[in-house]
């Protein structure tokens, strides 16, 4: 998929999202709220979404008129990185910060290109412990413990 098609899809999707949000502002639930106020709670959102629709419409038309070009981008690696972060957030409360953080650190390091697994594991473990100490002892911000180990 060349860049032009990607941009058309992106701008078009944003336009569609804006239109759906604008449609959402006309829900009956909102109409019944704050009826005694001259300036309702959807006044400002509709103003913002109106400009949103205008801008994304122009962006989509601009993308249609653009020449096709190819832009190299390693989507696979980037989505892999995103996957690692999603795993971290999803498992933080279950695995605890120590384990989830270690997996996140090693996963990201591997994806970015650090190809020494043992060293990566050791550095990750040391870093995770240091950060946990910093947050819990110095900043008094307690991080989740591993529920699987009875934390």
């Amino acid at each position, binding site marked *: 998929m060349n860049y032009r098609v*990607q*941009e058309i899809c*992106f701008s078009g999707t*944003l336009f569609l999202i804006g239109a759906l*949000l604008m449609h*959402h502002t006309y829900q009956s639930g*909102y109409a019944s*709220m*704050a009826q005694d*106020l*001259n*300036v309702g*709670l959807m*006044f*400002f*959102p509709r103003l*913002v*979404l109106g*400009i*949103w629709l205008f*801008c*994304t419409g*122009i*962006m989509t038309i*601009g993308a249609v008129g653009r020449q096709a070009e190819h*832009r*190299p*981008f*390693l989507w696979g*690696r*980037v989505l892999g*990185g*995103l996957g690692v*972060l999603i795993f*971290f*957030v999803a498992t*933080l*409360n279950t695995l605890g*910060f120590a384990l989830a*953080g270690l997996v*996140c*650190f*090693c996963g*990201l*390091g591997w*994806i*970015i*290109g*650090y190809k020494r697994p043992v060293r*990566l594991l050791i*550095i*990750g473990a040391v*870093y995770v412990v240091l*950060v946990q100490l910093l*947050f819990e002892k110095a*900043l*008094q*911000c*307690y*991080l989740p413990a591993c529920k699987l180990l009875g934390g």
Partner: protein
Amino acid sequence: MEHFMTGLGLVASLDTLLPLFIGTFIGVVVGALPGLGSVIGITLCLPFTFTMSSFTAISLLLGVYAGSVYGGSISAILINTPGTPASAATCFDGFTMAKAGQSEKALGWATMASVFGGLFSCFVLVLAAPQLADIALRFGPIETCALILMGLTCISTVSGGSQIKGIFAGMLGLFFSIIGQDPMTGDTRFTFGIFALSGGVDLIAVLVGTFALSEVFTRIDIVRRENIGSIISCRGLRFPSLAEWRPRWWLLLKSSVIGSFIGVLPGTGSSAAAFISYSEAKRSSSRRKNMGKGEPDGIVAAESANNAVTGGALVPSLALGLPGDAVTAVMLATLIMHGVTPGVRLMVDSPGIVYGIFISLVIANLLLIPFGYIVAKGFAYMLRLPEALLLPVITLLCLLGTYGVRNSAFDLWTTVATGFLGLLLRYFGVPLAPLVIGLVLGMQFEISLRQGYLISHGDVFNALKGHPIALGLVCATALMLLAPLWRLCMRRRSSPCQTKE
């Protein structure tokens, strides 16, 4: 003079100076760690103030406040992640300078601008607090709306090449600020049944995601595709020379005035001051074409303004008993807990305390220089890591900083989602800065707009006629928007003449 000496006597003791030193250092460190910020720094130190005297407690908190506002610039410059929302504008030029191998210089600019802005606001505090408090009382919703509208014009000036994409990003930021509870009625909007959204989208989570995570995702692509190593090297801090400062004195002074004035207004804050000052610099600086591409003017404007807010914010707090933000609210609460009542009578009943606070803030701002050097050196060591290790270090730190604000996993999801959104926006050439501006200023703008509309019964024209301050601000905003068009027209007129010749 007598009151000044009383204040000096309060400060000049180890019992006050040591907490002030420690507070400033903690503030710089906490401010430099992405996601933590002034409020967490203040909250950390608050329990220790219970056993201190009132003045010592306030000195500790002032040090944390001044330090944290400055500390945010260190991470903004070195890792493109504002440590506090007030430093978001510093990323635009600071990180670009760091990528160009001028990180030490960028840090030097930020440090000196912050110190100057902070010191300037101290003098404003002591010389003009009652008069400024009077002006603050004249600022109603209509004036506040006009002021924030001026700040929102930043969106067009930082949009770079594509104005339409910049305006869209600004609208996206404004939309994020709308999610959650309506500020006037408390009804929820755009939550789609998700309870966690009823508190709105956390500013820190969006900032960290938009700036830090999107940068991490972008670097994953660049590092693997181009096989290059670490892009940022830093050996510490290097101050600019007097010759480099000479053409920027006026900008520095103007930005400090803007920051001090905005700090005086309750509810506006250092983020608004930084963006309004940046916008003004982008409009008026002779080097405005380079702003956003590594021009020190951007750093000077943002940092002097956001640090100037620290002194200005104390004016309504001490003179009127009105806290401008969460930080000054905690400081006021500390004063009240120790039997000191802020308000109009404070200047009359305890002038020594007011002067003592002024002297403490001066010392805290001067301490930014050595402590900024130390923290920058610490970051410099961290940046020596290979990028494949550095990026996970930064990522985890940022995620934990976000988590530490409300201990909320939902904020982490917000950070990851906005990180991916930030990547998409960057890939398709949509500038990120307007998104942040819209998010930071959105809620205040909506509140003041709706309040102003209600007060004026929808009659905008007569409302502006009856509020000359607002009228002046709206005219200034219109000029700021029209000036680039005027310059373009003049340039087009002169170029056909040159061709004919």
